[in-house]
C-alpha cells in the first residue's frame, strides 16, 4: 500500500474544500450548470439516469482493508448499500445526493482516498497490472512508477483542460495484464541492453468509436526522464489535438492524422528542450517513492505451506474446482494470489454490497496483509495469501457469494452498467450478462470451453472494452430498440488486436443464443482442448462462425452491402 505523506493528505483535503465551495456556489445559483458540470466531472461526479454517479479513484487498483471498510460505510450512508467496480479499477456509487457529495469526499479523505480526475477531459486514474509486485513474470514492481505519475498528473496546471480524457496504463511483466496497447499512453517498464531500467512508451491506443492500438514511439526512455517525456507528449496533444469534434478529440486521432513518425518527431523535439530541466527525477526521488509502499512480511515457504493445502485440494472437489480457476502463482513460494469473483449468477458484474465489502476488509486483514486489489476485469484479488490459509478463505468467500469458480471463463465477463444506469448507453448490458450466465451456468461446460474473454459495452464509448474481447458485444440503438453487434478475435494482451464484426446485429432475444452458437462452432473447430478460442478463431477465421450465425443469404447480403 502507498501511504500518503502530509503533502498528499493536504492536497486531497484542499480539493475537498474547493469542491465543497464549488457545490455550494452551484446550489446557491452563482455557478452555472455548464461550468459546474466541467468542475464536478473533474471530481468524478456525473449526473446519470436516476441520480448522480460518483466514481472513486483506486490508483492502480490498490486498496487497504481500512479503505474498503470506508467504501462499505459510504455505500450504507450515502448510497443504497452497494458499489460497482469498473474496468478502470475504480469504484462507482450510483445513488449519492449532490448536496452530500462534499461530506462523502471528506469521509474518503480520512482514509487517503478521493475522486480526483476520475472523469472529465484530463488525466484519469492510472491503471496497472493487478498482480503487480506478486507476479512471477515481472521485471520490477510498476506501482511506484504509477504513483509518481499519479502525483505528477494530479492538478497538473497545464493539462487539466485537454481536448478529451486521457488514460494511462503501466505494465512491467512479460504478459501484459493491463491492456496497455488500448490506452492513450501505455508504459512498459523495460531494461535496455546495458541492463538499465527505463520505459517503452506507446501512444495513441484507445477503444470507443475508433478503436486503435497504441504505437511504440520510444523503445527506451531512461528511468529519470519519465515526467519530461510525458509533458512533451501531453503538450503536443494539448496544443494540436482536435477540439472541434468530440469524437475526433482523443490523442489517437492526432497520432493517426500526423502519422506516428511525425508525431514522434514533434514529441522528441519538444522533449529535447525540457529533458534536462527541473522535471528530471533524481534516483532518490524514485527510491523515496518505493519506500512509501508497504512490503508484506512474508514467512518462509515451509511455514506458509505445511502441506494442508494439497490435502484439502484432494479431499474437497468443490474447493479444487475453485482453486483451479481462482488462484494464480505467487512470486513467493508458499503463497498464492486469490481471485474474488464479482461475477456471480444474479448479480450485475462488478457489484459488491456493503456487507461484502466489510467482510472482504476483514478477510484482507486476516489473510492478505491488509490489502486488496481491483482488476480491470471487475474482480478483486487478495494477492498475498499463504497456502495454509486458502481453504479457510475459500469457505468464507463461499459464504459471501464471492467464490464463483469462473475466473477467466465465459461468465467472468466484463460489462458496463449499460442502459440500466448510464445516460450514455444505447442498450442494456446487465440483462444480457444474466442471459449468458443462465445459458452457461454449468461450470463443467465452462471449464471445457476454457479461457475466454467476453466483453460487453452498452454503447460506442466502449467502457466494457468490447473491441478487445475474444468475443465482444456492443449494444446499439435501432429506432428505439436494443440491438447487439458481435465481434470476434479481439485481445488486449501481448497479442493485442481489435475484433472483427460478425455481420448484422442481433436482437435482445437473439444475442445470448448467438453467443451459444459461437461457442458451439469453437468447440467443433478446435484441434484440441488446449487450443483456445482466440487461437482457433485466428486459425479458422470468421467463415464458420458467420455461416452458423446467419442464413447464408443474409451473410452474402451483408458482404455485398
Amino acid at each position: 500500500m502507498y501511504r500518503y505523506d502530509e503533502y498528499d493528505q493536504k492536497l486531497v483535503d484542499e480539493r475537498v474544500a474547493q469542491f465543497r465551495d464549488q457545490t455550494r456556489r452551484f446550489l446557491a445559483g452563482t455557478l452555472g450548470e455548464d461550468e459546474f458540470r466541467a468542475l464536478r466531472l473533474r471530481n468524478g461526479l456525473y449526473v446519470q439516469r436516476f441520480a448522480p454517479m460518483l466514481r472513486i479513484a483506486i490508483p492502480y487498483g490498490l486498496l487497504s482493508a481500512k479503505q474498503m471498510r470506508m467504501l462499505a460505510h459510504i455505500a450504507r450512508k450515502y448510497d443504497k448499500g452497494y458499489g460497482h467496480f469498473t474496468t478502470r479499477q475504480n469504484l462507482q456509487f450510483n445513488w449519492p445526493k449532490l448536496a452530500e457529495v462534499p461530506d462523502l469526499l471528506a469521509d474518503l479523505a480520512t482514509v487517503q482516498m478521493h475522486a480526483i480526475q476520475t472523469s472529465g477531459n484530463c488525466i484519469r486514474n492510472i491503471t496497472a497490472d493487478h498482480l503487480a509486485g506478486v507476479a512471477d513474470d515481472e521485471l520490477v514492481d510498476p506501482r511506484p512508477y504509477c504513483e509518481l505519475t499519479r502525483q505528477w498528473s494530479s492538478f497538473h496546471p497545464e493539462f487539466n483542460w485537454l481536448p478529451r480524457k486521457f488514460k494511462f496504463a503501466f505494465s512491467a511483466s512479460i504478459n501484459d495484464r493491463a491492456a496497455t496497447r488500448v490506452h492513450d499512453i501505455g508504459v512498459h517498464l523495460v531494461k535496455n541492453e546495458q541492463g538499465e531500467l527505463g520505459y517503452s512508451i506507446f501512444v495513441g491506443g484507445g477503444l470507443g468509436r475508433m478503436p486503435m492500438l497504441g504505437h511504440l514511439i520510444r523503445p527506451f526512455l531512461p528511468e529519470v526522464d519519465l515526467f519530461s517525456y510525458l509533458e512533451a507528449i501531453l503538450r503536443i496533444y494539448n496544443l494540436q489535438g482536435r477540439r472541434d469534434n468530440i469524437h475526433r478529440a482523443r490523442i489517437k486521432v492526432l497520432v493517426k492524422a500526423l502519422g506516428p513518425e511525425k508525431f514522434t518527431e514533434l514529441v522528441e523535439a519538444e522533449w529535447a528542450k525540457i529533458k534536462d530541466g527541473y522535471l528530471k527525477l533524481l534516483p532518490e526521488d524514485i527510491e523515496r517513492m518505493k519506500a512509501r509502499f508497504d512490503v508484506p512480511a512474508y514467512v518462509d515457504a515451509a511455514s506458509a505451506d505445511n502441506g494442508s493445502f494439497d490435502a484439502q485440494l484432494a479431499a474437497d472437489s468443490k474447493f479444487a474446482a475453485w482453486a483451479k480457476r481462482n488462484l494464480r502463482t505467487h512470486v513467493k513460494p508458499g503463497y498464492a494470489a486469490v481471485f474474488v469473483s464479482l461475477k456471480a449468477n444474479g448479480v450485475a458484474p462488478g457489484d459488491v454490497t456493503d456487507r461484502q465489502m466489510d467482510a472482504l476488509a476483514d478477510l484482507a486483514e486476516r489473510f492478505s496483509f491488509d490489502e486488496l486489489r481491483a482488476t480491470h476485469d471487475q474482480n478483486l484479488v487478495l494477492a498475498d495469501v499463504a497456502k495454509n490459509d486458502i481453504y479457510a478463505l475459500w469457505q468464507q468467500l463461499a459464504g459471501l457469494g464471492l467464490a464463483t469458480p469462473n475466473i477467466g471463463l465465459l461468465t467472468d465477463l466484463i460489462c458496463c452498467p449499460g442502459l440500466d444506469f448510464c445516460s450514455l448507453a444505447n442498450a442494456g448490458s446487465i440483462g444480457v450478462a444474466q442471459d449468458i450466465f443462465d445459458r452457461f451456468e454449468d461450470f463443467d461446460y465452462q471449464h471445457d470451453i476454457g479461457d475466454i474473454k467476453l466483453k460487453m459495452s452498452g454503447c460506442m464509448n466502449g467502457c466494457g472494452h468490447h473491441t478487445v474481447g475474444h468475443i465482444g458485444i456492443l449494444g446499439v440503438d435501432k429506432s428505439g430498440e436494443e440491438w447487439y453487434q458481435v465481434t470476434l478475435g479481439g485481445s488486449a494482451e501481448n497479442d493485442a488486436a481489435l475484433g472483427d464484426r460478425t455481420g448484422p446485429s442481433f436482437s435482445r432475444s437473439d444475442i445470448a443464443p448467438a453467443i451459444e452458437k459461437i461457442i458451439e462452432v469453437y468447440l467443433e473447430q478446435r484441434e484440441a482442448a488446449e487450443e483456445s478460442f482466440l487461437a482457433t478463431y485466428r486459425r479458422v477465421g470468421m467463415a464458420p462462425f458467420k455461416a452458423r450465425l446467419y442464413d447464408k443469404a443474409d451473410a452474402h447480403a451483408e458482404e455485398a452491402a
Partner: protein
Amino acid sequence: MSTLIRGNAVVADDWLELDDETAVPSGASVIVSLARWQSGREALAAAARVGLRLPNTEDIDALWPLLRERPLIALQFPKSSDGRAFSQARLLREQHGFDGEIRATGDVQRDQLQFMQRCGFDAFALRADQNVDDCLKALRDFDLAYQHAARADLPLVWQLRRGS
C-alpha cells in the same frame, strides 16, 4: 470593461483593448490583434506601448521573434474548457523567458485562475459575471503543488521531500 486582477490584487486597467479599426489614442497603451501588428506597425506609432492579442491556435515558437520585445501578450480562452493557452503561457515563460505581462482574456473564471497563474499568467481580465473577492481567494485554493511549472511560488512537494 472587465475587472482586472494583476499579481494578487484588483487594479485599474492601464491598457486599452483595440479592435482592428479603431484609431490609436495618442500616448495610450494598447492591445491589438496579431494581424493588426503584422499589417503595419507604423500606424501604431502613436501608442506608448503595444501589447499583442494572440489566438490560442498560434505557434509560440514560430512567432517568438515578433513577441520578444512586446511588454504584454494577451492569451485567449474562447471557452473555459479550451486549455491551449495554458501551454502557450508555459512556452512563453519557460522556453523563451518572456518577462512581460501575460494576460488571460476571454472566458476567464474563478476556478481556473490558480492554474493559469502557475502556468505563467500574471494578469486576469475576469469574465463580467465573476465575483472579484471570490476570484482573489481562488488564487489560494491550493497551498502547495506536486508540479513545478512556470511559477514555482507555491511550495512544491518534490522539493519539500528532497529537503526533508
